[in-house]
């Protein structure tokens, strides 16, 4: 998995590419929390994301809660059908902000 960071006006965009699994999740979690320390608006561009296991979902939940606690937000963009169906299956579709 690779993460590419972009800054756009008042928000940070993280482009996630590859698999978010038990081994790569710590890297994503660190990137999310670090971004939310810098700015309270975060976009996760999921165009290149094709796999997310429960470890990754927990990192997204943590990001969502952190963003809320800072009166900011975390938005997922360009979510693939496969990842979307996993978010649906787990009820995360109702928790997360998806564009």
């Amino acid at each position, binding site marked *: 998995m690779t993460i590419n960071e972009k800054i756009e006006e008042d928000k940070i965009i993280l482009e996630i590419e590859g698999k978010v699994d*038990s081994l790569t999740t710590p890297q994503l979690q660190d990137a999310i929390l670090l971004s939310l320390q810098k700015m309270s608006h975060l976009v996760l561009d999921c165009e290149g994301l094709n796999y997310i*296991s*429960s470890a990754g979902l*927990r990192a997204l939940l943590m990001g969502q809660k952190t963003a*809320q606690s800072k009166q900011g937000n975390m938005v997922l963009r360009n979510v693939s*059908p496969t990842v979307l169906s*996993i978010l649906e299956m*787990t*009820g995360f579709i109702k*928790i997360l902000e998806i564009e």
Partner: protein
Amino acid sequence: MDKLEVEAKLDNLYTVLDFVEEKLKAIGFPEENVTKLCIVIEEIFVNIANYAYKEKAGMVSLEVDSKASAIRFVFMDEGIKYNPLDRPDPDITLSADERQIGGLGIFMMKKTMDIVEYEYKDNKNILTMIKFF
């Protein structure tokens, strides 16, 4: 039947997933469901790697075989007795604030697989999962 036996540690995750992916490709398993199945395999393997043997080292085996349009996975380990099917499902209707962290992986397994069975025999945890396609 194909069988893989590795030490139950997180570092072996990709060895396990590569083994499963190769098998799924070989039998022509529908592409759109390969990811979901691999996620289930990850969840079960990671649970065993993290909890089955506590601090000790131990092995885990995974058998895969397919007949007609069904594929069967059997995980076996000699760690502490643990039936993942006993775990209550997470409440997926809760808000972000109320959502609990655990239980998601097992829940995804139940949702994705068509048949799941657990037995404890000869000091082994045996988890069998079948998916029709």
